């Protein structure tokens, strides 16, 4: 049954395209999707998910249920980087612990989108407000990380944190801005507006996801070689923490009575790790941390794990609890 789910997840064009990209990199073919094409795909996916979410949200309305979910989202986005930090401190210096915990406290939009596609294939769905929850969960980890840094690190030349720069980085980073903005656009344009852009931002969605995951596979495959440098502790961390986060959030979701599809997407958000927004912020604010660690973990370990095994695994648990 669980195996069935894995198969059903994997025999999907997006996941197969990811594997195709992964092997391309491992076998050192020169298959390459050069910039800015990956940027085109990721912009497209963010806009599409935002518009779709806004359109759904306009239909369902902003209810107390929605607010409850947003609070739960903020809660986990604040909590995860804190406990991740203390686990990581067992083995790492403050700088790397900060960068990695921030990475895991934030989310991956592509994991979210891939999971949504999995749900869609099973004939189930989730609320448009989950996109709002996702945008809320992108940034808090950056702030928490930098608070940890100022509490626990002795800055060499005592340069104080540039909080203004930092809050901007956290809350006005392009993906947060684009998701929120298009959520709003989708919310206000009404049915007629949505129909006008649906051939691009609706119908093409799943094919574009497959195209983009080919590239994600290539990039992840290239980083696989760096896993040796990462060490066994961090590899285990990159798989076990997401599972723990997912289980924890599933229990929370059950406790607070979320619907099945929403609970699943919530678990996915908690389990996923950032590989664009947070790394960019960390390279700017914590240059002492080693990007080969946090980028590799998030991109070459956690992302592939989540979209191949994590998605069916978390769904399996949820199926048990919600029936």
């Amino acid at each position, binding site marked *: 049954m669980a195996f069935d789910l894995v198969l059903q997840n994997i025999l999907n064009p997006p996941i197969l395209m990811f594997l195709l990209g992964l092997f391309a990199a491992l076998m050192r073919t020169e298959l390459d999707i050069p910039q800015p094409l990956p940027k085109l795909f990721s912009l497209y996916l963010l806009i599409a998910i935002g518009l779709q979410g806004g359109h759904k949200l306009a239909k369902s309305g902003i209810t107390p249920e929605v607010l409850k979910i947003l609070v739960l989202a903020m809660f986990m986005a604040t909590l995860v980087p804190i406990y991740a930090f203390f686990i990581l401190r067992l083995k790492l210096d403050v700088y790397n612990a900060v960068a990695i915990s921030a990475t895991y406290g934030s989310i991956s939009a592509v994991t979210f989108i891939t999971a949504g596609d999995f749900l869609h294939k099973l004939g189930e769905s989730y609320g448009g407000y989950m996109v709002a929850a996702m945008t809320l969960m992108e940034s808090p980890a950056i702030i928490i990380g930098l608070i940890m840094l100022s509490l626990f690190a002795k800055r060499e030349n005592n340069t104080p944190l540039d909080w203004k720069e930092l809050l901007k980085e956290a809350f006005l980073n392009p993906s947060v801005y684009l998701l929120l903005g298009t959520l709003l656009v989708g919310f206000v344009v009404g049915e007629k507006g949505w129909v006008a852009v649906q051939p691009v931002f609706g119908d093409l969605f799943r094919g574009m996801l497959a195209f983009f995951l080919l*590239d994600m596979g290539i990039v992840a495959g*290239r980083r696989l070689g760096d896993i040796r440098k990462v060490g066994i502790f961090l590899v285990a961390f990159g798989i076990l923490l997401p599972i723990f986060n997912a289980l924890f959030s599933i229990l929370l979701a059950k406790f607070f009575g979320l619907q099945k599809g929403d609970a699943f997407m919530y678990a996915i958000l908690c389990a996923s790790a950032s*590989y664009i927004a947070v790394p960019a912020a960390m390279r700017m604010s914590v240059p002492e941390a080693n990007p080969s660690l946090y*980028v590799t973990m998030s991109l070459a370990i956690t992302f592939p794990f989540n979209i191949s095994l994590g998605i069916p695994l978390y769904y399996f648990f949820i199926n048990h609890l919600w029936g």
Partner: protein
Amino acid sequence: MKKVEIVVESIHLNKVLEILERVGVSGYTVIRDVLGKGERGIMAGDELTDVFKNSYVFAVCSEDMADKIAESIKPILKKLGGVCLMSDVMWVKH
């Protein structure tokens, strides 16, 4: 005149330009998306996350200014890596 050349990780380019502005050079030229290898390993560009990319800057200025740039840039090079070069050059003025 001196030609000052600097290679630095792209994300920190602004810090270098700020130094050039502060010292008061009359101009500079920047080439983005330069790759390289140095103490901190290979910078071959990572398409998705945009890490591991350098920028190359050069500015032509008086020897005096060049020295000031060298002074101000040392701590940055120490913290963030990169290289800074100086050489003699003749500026053809119209």
